[in-house]
């Protein structure tokens, strides 16, 4: 199952709720302002490192670039995908939950 998060983890509770309710083994895609959760050295990094042991985490490349986040700033283990990769993730999961 694919979960998408488009909110900043510093501003809203979407990431927390997703991590509380997504089953182990799920995929999580960070997009729009949600990509800020992918940065190393932030107050949410510990939460994300924990998440990486339960989930596969992706971040949308075009949204990282728009916000000036270079790939070397990302937490190890987070994969970057484009819109085509986003489509593949959605197609290959059984269902999608957008935590709007």
């Amino acid at each position, binding site marked *: *199952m694919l979960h998408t998060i488009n909110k900043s983890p510093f501003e809203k509770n979407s990431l927390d709720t997703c991590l509380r309710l997504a089953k182990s083994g799920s995929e999580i895609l960070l997009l729009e302002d949600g990509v800020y959760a992918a940065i190393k050295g932030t107050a949410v990094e510990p939460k994300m490192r924990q998440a990486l042991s339960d989930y596969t985490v992706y971040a949308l490349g075009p949204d990282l670039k728009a916000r000036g986040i270079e790939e070397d700033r990302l937490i190890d283990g987070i994969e970057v995908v484009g819109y085509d990769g986003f489509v593949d993730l959605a197609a290959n999961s059984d*269902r999608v939950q957008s935590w709007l």
Partner: protein
Amino acid sequence: MGNGAKKFMYVNRRAPYGTIYALEGLEVVLIGAAFDQDVCMAFVDDGVFQLKKGQDTNESNMKNFSPTYRALGDYDVNKLYVEKESLEQRGMSEDDLLELTYEDEEDDYKEKPSIRIVNKEELADLMEQQDVILNY
């Protein structure tokens, strides 16, 4: 429910009135009831506030759509899952919620409660069983 029925879950995560998502989300559920699918609703985070008893919008001049939840049972929408963890974080218990019921046709039309309190693990399992999940 036909054999080809899909499982729809409407996930409600927002408080009523501050934004319109709760009201317009409810409109989707009511319309959707006519399509003979397997429908349930989940109330998570501030979504649990939608079911709070005693809403009165007279002084704020908005439309009070709280009574509409009572109609859900008549539309065969009778699985309303409320996340226990979200309730507790907000200092609420089942007593704070609207009393919503439906008549169970398979059990001599007995009146039964529509609201079911579930914990996060139960809700996670339910989500994995859906075909379509819409989040408001």
